[in-house]
């Protein structure tokens, strides 16, 4: 592993250590369980947004090496989402299967959260070179477009669970719109230039 990768690996664990430290020093307020559940979910979202930032950064800077960091960021999305999910299953539902199934069926934001998490699993399984080879670049890329769906679904999940003040989820939604916008703009430009070059020839 390169130095950059090791640094990123350790830096990405900071939120975990931060939360553990805050928990042990009683800094998470009167409802620490709610706080760690919320924070781990938020970090999953942040890491997802970071993975979506990699491509635009490469286009902007031309620094192709950034692409090698994307996989690790993506795996951290899963890591924090898994913590978030486990905290919900354990501290919210105490692994009561009946309650969990009822909750998933009945509550739209839980339903969405559950399927968003499930959608991460095929991406995690295929996040190694062997799987890229086995699937072939094209199919692998297609599969990993699921990321866009996951990003939209997690935004909806976040937006729906907030009681009244939607500022925070809206902030992340705006960032996502920008990240998507850059892609659309680039796609549009590529196709129009391609079309015009075709005409020229």
């Amino acid at each position, binding site marked *: 592993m390169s130095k950059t990768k090791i640094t990123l690996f350790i830096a990405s664990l900071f939120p975990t250590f931060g939360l553990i430290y805050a928990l042990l020093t009683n800094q998470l307020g009167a*409802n620490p369980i709610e706080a760690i559940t919320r924070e781990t979910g938020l970090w999953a979202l942040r890491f997802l947004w970071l993975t979506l930032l990699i491509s635009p950064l490469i286009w902007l800077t031309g620094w192709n090496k950034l692409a090698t960091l994307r996989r690790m960021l993506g795996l951290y999305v899963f890591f924090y989402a898994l913590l978030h999910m486990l905290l919900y299953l354990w501290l919210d539902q105490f692994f009561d299967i009946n309650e969990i199934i009822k*909750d998933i069926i009945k509550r739209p934001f839980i339903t969405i959260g559950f399927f968003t998490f499930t959608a991460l699993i095929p991406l995690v399984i295929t996040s190694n070179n062997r799987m890229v080879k086995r699937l072939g670049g094209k199919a692998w890329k297609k599969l990993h477009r699921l990321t866009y769906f996951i990003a939209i679904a997690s935004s909806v999940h976040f937006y729906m669970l907030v009681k009244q003040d939607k500022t925070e989820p809206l902030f992340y939604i705006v960032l996502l719109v920008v990240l998507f916008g850059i892609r659309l703009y680039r796609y549009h430009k590529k196709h129009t230039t391609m079309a015009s070059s075709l005409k020229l020839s």
Partner: protein
Amino acid sequence: MHIGKKRLGDDIVASEITDHQVYLNRRQFLNGSAVVATASLLPLSMAGAGSVPEPTFLDLKQSPLSSDDKLTTYDSVTTYNNFYEFGTDKASPALLATDFPDKSKPWRVTIEGECDKPGEYEYDDLIRPFTLEERIYRFRCVEGWSMVIPWVGFPLADLLKRAQPNSRAKYVEFTTLYDPEQMPGQSRKVLDWPYTEGLRIDEAMNPLTLLSVGLYGQELLGQNGAPIRLVVPWKYGFKSIKSIVNIRFVETMPNSAWMKAGPKEYGFYSNVNPDVDHPRWSQSRERRIGEFLKRKTELYNGYGEQVAHLYTDMDLTKNF
């Protein structure tokens, strides 16, 4: 404004003042455990209760309506608050309401509407006629957490009766102060300010309904709704409107701030009910602040004996 100062009295000898550690463990005393045993446990239980400032209300009557549940710590009660007038997260109110209410401005409460004796009162005059008592109530938030809080106050009915409501007074509407300078959260339109709430007249007159001016033996802090707030223990916490400036008797059911914000999510009654879920989350269980496991939520927050009769023949799913 000198809230409760008159109750303090300058002539109380120090030895007459109940040791505050004893105050914290008074429930054990009342429950009849051996005094010596309790006393020897003091340091331990103190650690559990956290620190509580010296009480300012000293001669409080204990209410038979009090709950025996273990008190939520003073620290949690005063730092984990929903008070959107001071920000929408739980920590903001304690940080932003430290100087609330502005002591240089008198706090006035208007009582008006369908009554024979309306009036405008300064805070001290408003509460002077009433005997303050301590009531330990369960408090259940619509978000699925709960606390047990030793309130200081008097029955709302005592105040309402003095205003002599007439036969058209079917409901009571309450309004919180609107002053964005003192309440920075009001500069953002998260809710339709000022915050309003309402009760049916029989709910308002129920002996459980309390006007609170303090908790843990002290005056209310800004974040808890100083200087005077409502406490309706069988309803979700948002019904217990804070920092009241207006009480109005009305003939038709008033619209509350939360009903306006989400008519499908927040009804007029908002009685605690494990079988009627919030459209977005379940209400069947709750996390008691300070406890690890969740507990089952009880119908009317466990106060059915006192209030169930108010809702006979009513469809609680429709009248949520």
